């Protein structure tokens, strides 16, 4: 079966004088699997998902999304993308945003109404009449997830989906990923929350400074009795340049006591 996403020797830099933020990255996603992209800040994870979603062009290399180019709107028809820190047209309400996006997905009116209603219920935004500009970060994140699943995607990309969610919201996202996997949807999860990734992903790729350090099934990467977080930290420390992990010097300096001159 053809992979849902194939990334071959992908490189990306934003300006000619800058270093590559993604450097010779290759991987593929099979139908129905949940794939975790892990790495510290600046590892290049968000750049990769933006290239897969057609938002940014690669400097070199090849990306195939559902058999086509990510730049081709038709290839994005079966893509659901929940961005990191999502935002939406500020003066629209949640149901209007979903109706808007349903139209962009080409959903017929009756189906659009049904899905919008159900997505609002799922995201606990049903009955919310305020405009998006009055939403909290968590509400925007929920709306971001609702719009990502609106088109019943074959590939769902979640970029830090639980960053602004409360524990109940995180549980909902876990349940969502499990449910979609069961339906055959491929999930690409980009997250700092390694415990979440460990719970839901079949395979992970650990990145640092634009390169993949290690990739494989979670069971193979995480030995018995250890956690993904421990493996991640060990891998990252081994690849990172030596640095003094101590506190900044000014913290340890003697400070005058309150009231003294």
């Amino acid at each position, binding site marked *: 079966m053809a992979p849902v996403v194939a990334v071959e020797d992908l490189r990306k830099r*934003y300006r000619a004088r800058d270093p590559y933020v993604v450097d010779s990255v290759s991987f593929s996603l099979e139908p129905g699997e949940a794939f975790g992209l892990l790495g510290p800040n600046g590892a290049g994870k968000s750049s990769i998902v*933006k290239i897969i*979603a*057609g*938002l*940014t*062009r690669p400097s070199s290399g090849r990306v195939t999304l559902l058999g086509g180019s990510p730049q081709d*709107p*038709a*290839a*994005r*028809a079966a*893509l659901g*993308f929940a*961005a990191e*820190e*999502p*935002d*939406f*047209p*500020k*003066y*629209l309400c949640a149901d*209007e945003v979903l109706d*808007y*996006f349903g*139209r*962009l*997905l*080409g959903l017929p009116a009756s189906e659009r109404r049904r899905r919008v209603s159900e997505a609002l219920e799922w995201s606990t935004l049903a009955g919310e009449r305020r*405009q998006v500009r009055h939403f909290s970060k968590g509400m925007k994140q929920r709306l*971001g997830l609702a*719009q990502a699943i609106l*088109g019943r995607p074959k590939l769902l990309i979640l970029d830090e989906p639980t960053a602004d969610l409360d524990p109940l919201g995180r549980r909902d996202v876990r349940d969502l990923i499990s449910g979609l996997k069961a339906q055959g949807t491929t999930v690409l999860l980009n997250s700092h929350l390694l415990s979440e990734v460990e719970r839901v992903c079949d395979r992970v790729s650990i990145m640092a400074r634009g390169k993949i350090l290690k990739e494989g099934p979670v069971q193979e990467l995480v030995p018995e009795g250890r956690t993904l977080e421990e493996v991640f930290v060990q891998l990252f420390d081994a690849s990172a340049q030596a640095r003094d992990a101590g506190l900044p010097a000014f913290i340890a300096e003697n400070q005058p006591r309150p009231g003294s001159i």
Partner: protein
Amino acid sequence: MPQALAVAKYTLLELTRRRLVFVIVAIGVALVAGLGIAPHVLPGDHTDQDRVIALLTGLQGVVPTAMTLCAFAVGMTVMNHDLDSGAVVSIFAKPISRASYTGGKLIAATGLLLLISAIFTSGSLIVVAANGGSVYGVVFWTCAALAANIVLLMLLVMILTVYINNVVAAALVLVFNYLAAQTQSLHAMVQHNVITDAIARTLVNIAYWGVPHELISNLQRQIMQMQLDTRELVVGATCDGHGSCYNPLDRVPGASGAVDIIFWAGYLVALGLVLFWAVRRKQV
């Protein structure tokens, strides 16, 4: 096309919910109404002709200012808010081409500006009718020319907001618009042989074909003609010592001709293409 219309629909909905444009329109309409009422309530023995002259002079100040401010308000927000907030990330990840997105934005922004122009045109015609009428044609074409001019200004602001902060974009377009107007004035001086230096004439001519030509109606000439009529003055040909004669009214700019309208259309198409290209190249 359905996707472009979806973008247009929700962009229009957003624009109608932003208060700034409506505050400008409301103030403009109130001022136009005030200009229409003023001659009836202010003391003095005014003829119909006096009232129309005063009214046209007033409209000449209020309507262009209000419509230009609306164009800036729309141009600054219509695309920039999506880009600035990151909303465009979720939109561009959907199966919509960037051309459809830009097309939808243009339909919404241009549609709103035309609606605003129609409001000011109707308002101006009503107050002219209430003050003796007779110059409906020139008022209509003045508003039509203004509508055409502000669409270009809005497009310029929209293009710049793809790259830079919308306030900076508006300031740059304001400066550009001023320079374009000055270039047009200089060009008129070249045409009337006020500027005679060959190098200066060449430079002005080159600059003239680089900036958009503001479309104008016969309003200015009409006002002057009415002022002369009021004073029962007859302007005849004036001849200089070298035997060349001209009518002073000819020195007052007349309505834009076909060349200016074609140039405006060409500029519109060129700016539209630049906007499509800018959005297509935008990495979000």
